[in-house]
């Protein structure tokens, strides 16, 4: 008797999809921070701290899966792929860490095997608008103040102002990242314990030490002098990019960041959001005495000093306050010119 069998249908694997898929919108933050950014409300973080670093950037995975001997991955902000960042790699995919939030990217691969080259189609994706957190090995609570939009339609340039915790655990890889990749030229140290020090980033990095005020401390005579001194660092383009920090990268650092972003005219919610990112970090985490809701009140108090009343925008009042501290119009204009760009 003839035995009938079902025809054998070999199930072929699904063709490997490329990543990021065309049209994808990708967050550079972890899921918890992404949800927080998307639905941002001030002072809602009292239950998130566990002294782990949760604010490090999430790398973007690129996958092309063609099995060539080597691949050039080209990533550009322009549709014609001009002026790309290039990554020479092996394998069928790679993770890239330092992309910018709120940016449309185009990418393609040029692969090589046996003397032949093969160029892929151009793909595109976007990154979600968010604070740009940065990974410097051995340093906690690091971010770039760039990417924030202002009330007058400008944007803070990426890659010129970084804030974070101190360099107590900085590694050799951290130095390389800070100096060779991020290009930091000036370390602005806001702690009071250090004078006449040198930057652990090396002799080529300018070291500026200021005993900085915390929050309402800006209203004291010493605080006013120090705040003016801190801000003048950003008026000299030769100092940029600047990394400024205290110990935790939260309080004295947060005070300066608030005033600087207010001067630049950044929208108020973005200024507060930048401050609160610290609570997702190891060093900027809090204890019973420094719950986020309490600390945000300290920031409110700072705001009431540098930008009192409700009539004029945050930027105008902050500028007026800083002029009273002795900063000149020329210095304040220089800071804005150095750090702001038109949105194209």
């Amino acid at each position, binding site marked *: 008797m003839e035995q009938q069998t079902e025809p054998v249908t070999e199930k072929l694997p699904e063709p490997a999809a490329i990543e990021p898929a065309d049209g994808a919108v990708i967050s550079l933050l972890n899921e918890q921070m992404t949800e927080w950014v998307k639905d941002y409300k001030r002072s809602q973080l009292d239950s998130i701290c566990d*002294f782990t670093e949760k604010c490090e950037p999430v790398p973007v995975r690129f996958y092309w899966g063609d099995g060539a*001997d*080597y691949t*050039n991955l*080209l990533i550009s902000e322009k549709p014609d792929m001009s002026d*790309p*960042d*290039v*990554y*020479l*790699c*092996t*394998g069928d995919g*790679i993770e890239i860490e330092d992309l910018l939030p709120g940016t449309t990217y185009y990418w393609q691969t*040029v692969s*090589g*095997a*046996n*003397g032949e*080259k093969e160029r892929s189609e151009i793909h595109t994706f976007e990154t979600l608008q968010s604070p740009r957190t940065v990974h410097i090995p051995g340093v906690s609570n690091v971010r770039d103040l760039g990417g924030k939009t202002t009330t007058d339609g400008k944007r803070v340039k990426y890659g010129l102002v970084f804030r974070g915790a*101190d360099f*107590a*655990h900085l590694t050799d890889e951290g130095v*390389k990242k800070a*100096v*060779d*990749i991020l290009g930091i030229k000036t370390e602005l140290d806001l*702690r009071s*314990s*250090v004078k006449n*020090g040198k930057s652990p980033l090396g002799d080529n990095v300018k070291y500026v030490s200021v005993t900085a005020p915390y929050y309402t401390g800006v209203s004291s005579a010493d605080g006013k002098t120090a705040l003016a001194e801190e801000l003048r660092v950003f008026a000299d383009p030769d100092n940029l990019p600047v990394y400024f920090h205290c*110990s935790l990268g939260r309080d004295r650092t947060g005070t300066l960041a608030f005033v600087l972003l207010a001067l630049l005219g950044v929208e108020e919610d973005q200024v507060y959001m930048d401050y609160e990112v610290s609570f997702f970090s*190891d*060093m900027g*985490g809090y*204890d019973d005495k420094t719950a986020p809701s309490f600390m945000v009140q300290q920031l409110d108090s700072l705001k009431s000093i540098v930008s009192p009343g409700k009539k004029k925008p945050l930027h105008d009042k902050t500028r007026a306050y800083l002029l009273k501290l002795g900063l000149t119009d020329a210095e304040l204009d220089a800071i804005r010119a150095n750090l702001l760009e038109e949105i194209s």
Partner: protein
Amino acid sequence: MRIRRFLCTLMCMTLAMTSLFPATAAGQEEIKGEIPITAHDPKTSAYRYSKMDIYSQEEAVEAGVPFGYSGYVMGLTGDSAVGITVDFSDRNIPLSVVKALHMRVYYTDKQREVRITIDAGVSWVMRHEAKKPGEWEDVVLSNPSELKKLANDDGMLGVFGFGFRNHDGTRGSTAYIDEISAELIDGDDIPPRIVYDGPDHIETTEGKPFAADVSAYDDQEKAAFPVEYVWDKQATDGEGNLIKGEYKLTLRASDSFGNKAEKTLTVTVGERDTTPPVILFDTDKIETLAGAHVMLDIKAEDDHDPVSVVMTWSDGAVDRAGRLTKGTHTLTLTAADLTGNKTEKTVTVVANDRL
């Protein structure tokens, strides 16, 4: 139950002296190596000019050390910053089990505070302000986030300093320390796990060091511990390379509370391996753009050992940021197994403005 496992009292201070000044008293040799005090980093430590003396009770009286200490006591003097550096690294105390650090100090009227620091003179982990100048005081560091900063790269209590500061910002003074101790969390009687996924019988070859992917982890302490290899007979030569033969190997590990774990393997060491690794990269020429970030991960395989490929670039090929400079460069790939068999391959890399 609170276990106070490491108590470095005045006796231990004597050990500190043995590391800095040759010990002469017979009794000191017996406890040599117990002390965590170590030499200051001569390049970075602000305490490097601080002079340390260890006094017995009789000597302390003669030296005018204020009463209130017990047994030996340490005196620190100097014209600049006064402090000590301690190193707990080789005690393998995971930070996860440290409940608090205790220190007993005497503040003179001149002194404002003591600082616990990992980079003496630059920043501090904790400051303790003098409450009663002219009396002995207990300094306690128990904040978990602050304690965490005292860890070395392995998550163990590491190197840090204690430094004294004066009221008026000036430097130079005399300080006294009676005790430094680490208070640990409640102990347990559960041994660590020896983590090893390989076979119970290992076959390998002579003329190379023994290698196995073995570690030990304690779930209660949430920390890794070193694994000791104990052979049943001489298994290696003077250079640490395996000798042909049959062996029994015992893997041993202990946690902070002395709980021990063991696992036994058998090892057959055969004839010397003479086959070199094979580099898994066919291409002789790579074309790319100038400025490309080099992220090549080239593999090799070997019949006996796990091997990796070392990439060596011709001079000037790669800048400090890891990007290729414009031009034609030579990339040399090298793979060697544990016996020393080696394979080399040269690749030409052309980095131009166009691709």
